[in-house]
């Protein structure tokens, strides 16, 4: 039996992503952010997103997020001191809360983006065009979606190749490691330029131009469920902001 997934228009997914990301950026309340994260994951699963695959794909990014959380916890001095060294407050309750908020915020943005991955790149571009995003920008998005996996593989191969030149990353000091990273950029950037040049030639050979007036075989149509999702996303996002800023949420736990 196939996995259940709700088929909806990309524009209604974009509305949810926009709403949740806006809440994540502007609302500083750990309980609200936690609730939004649970909601984001649940909706992404309903749309058929592969959350585990997204976590695996962004594995290295999570290490970076974790370092930021630790740094944020150390540099925030609010709230009860939980750990101090010679009277210098190192970890405070406020720092941990702010770090937690940051982690929840980026998780909402990453997981809400998985909702978009449940539509094809062609649908994403068509959705952007139909919400009147200029074609040039929509086309750039489609090229980015198309070339991102290729670029990722190329970076991976380059990273492997530089290590195979006899470099043991764990054994070289940080300063030299940064120097090596600069060298990795060279083939990646050169490859991207070459691909862009090849792509533009191939497109021009097919008489492609970014004309404003375009016809498309694929036309997206809003169904009842899409109108319902769009309305719900708008009402929910507005409600969170009104309740948060007008009525005020319960004070933070610190």
């Amino acid at each position, binding site marked *: 039996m196939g996995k259940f997934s709700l088929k909806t228009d990309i524009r209604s997914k974009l509305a949810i992503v926009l709403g949740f990301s806006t809440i994540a950026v502007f609302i500083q309340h750990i309980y609200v952010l936690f609730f939004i994260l649970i909601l984001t994951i649940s909706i992404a699963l309903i749309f058929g997103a592969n959350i585990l695959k997204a976590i695996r794909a962004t594995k290295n990014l999570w290490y970076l997020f974790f370092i930021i959380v630790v740094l944020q916890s150390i540099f925030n001095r609010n709230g009860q001191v939980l750990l101090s060294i010679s009277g210098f407050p190192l970890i405070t309750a406020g720092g941990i809360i702010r770090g937690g908020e940051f982690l929840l915020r980026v998780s909402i943005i990453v997981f809400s983006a998985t909702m978009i991955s449940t539509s094809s790149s062609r649908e994403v571009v068509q959705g952007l065009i139909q919400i009147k995003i200029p074609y040039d920008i929509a086309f750039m998005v489609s090229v980015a979606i198309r070339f991102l996996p290729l670029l990722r593989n*190329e970076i991976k*191969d*380059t990273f*492997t*190749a*530089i*290590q*195979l*030149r*006899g*470099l*043991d*990353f*764990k*054994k*070289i000091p940080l300063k*030299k490691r940064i*120097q*090596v990273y600069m*060298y*990795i950029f*060279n*083939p990646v950037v*050169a*490859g991207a330029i*070459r691909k862009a040049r090849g792509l533009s030639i191939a497109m021009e050979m097919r008489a492609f131009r970014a004309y404003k007036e375009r016809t498309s075989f694929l036309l997206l149509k809003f169904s009842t469920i899409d109108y319902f999702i769009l309305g719900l996303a708008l009402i929910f996002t507005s409600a969170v902001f009104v309740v948060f800023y007008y009525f005020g949420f319960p004070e933070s736990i610190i």
Partner: protein
Amino acid sequence: MSFIKFENVSFNYQAQKPLFNGIDLCIEPGSFTAITGPNGSGKTTLGKLAIGILKPLSGKVLLEDRDISGMSLGEVGGKIGYLFQNPEVQIFANTVIDDLTFIMRIKNIDEGIISKKIDTLLDFLNISDLKQSNTFNLSYGEKQRLAIAGILINEPQFLVLDEPTTGLDVERKKILAGLINKLLDAGKGLMIISHDHKFINNFSGQVLRITEGTIYG
């Protein structure tokens, strides 16, 4: 003692049917081995398993009797060189000389030794005239020879070349064949992954064919 040994190795990519199921293979030091087979048969995967870029799901790949999964790529690179299908991913600097020297400079090797090594290597590969050239302007064949030079700088005992004849004309293939013979004469072992049978027939050694996850000698 085998140089590279596959012991009951199984491998498959995520959510795909098994590519290799319990294969055994021995590659002797200083020998020539050609891996052939249709597209998608797993030739490149076998090469990447041999050098430790990919890890087997079960079984072991041994390099000089040591489990390769316990070795870093840097350590493996000192023993085996790998030429990627696209040599452009292994050219890192803007000039030929910088590309060949930057790793040695990072390792704090003496400038005199670097200079001597580079001159010998460029001469060996017949690309001395390209020493100061911009890597972006090199032809495909020149880029390939530069990538091989980058590999040889580590003085590995063995080289794995993945589809080295792709994009080369008859003349460039002859130059590459001459270079491979020179490497074999210098005592280097070689594994060539290719479906260019005419090219492979230039060398004497074992030819292995991969079909549906099985290796035929």
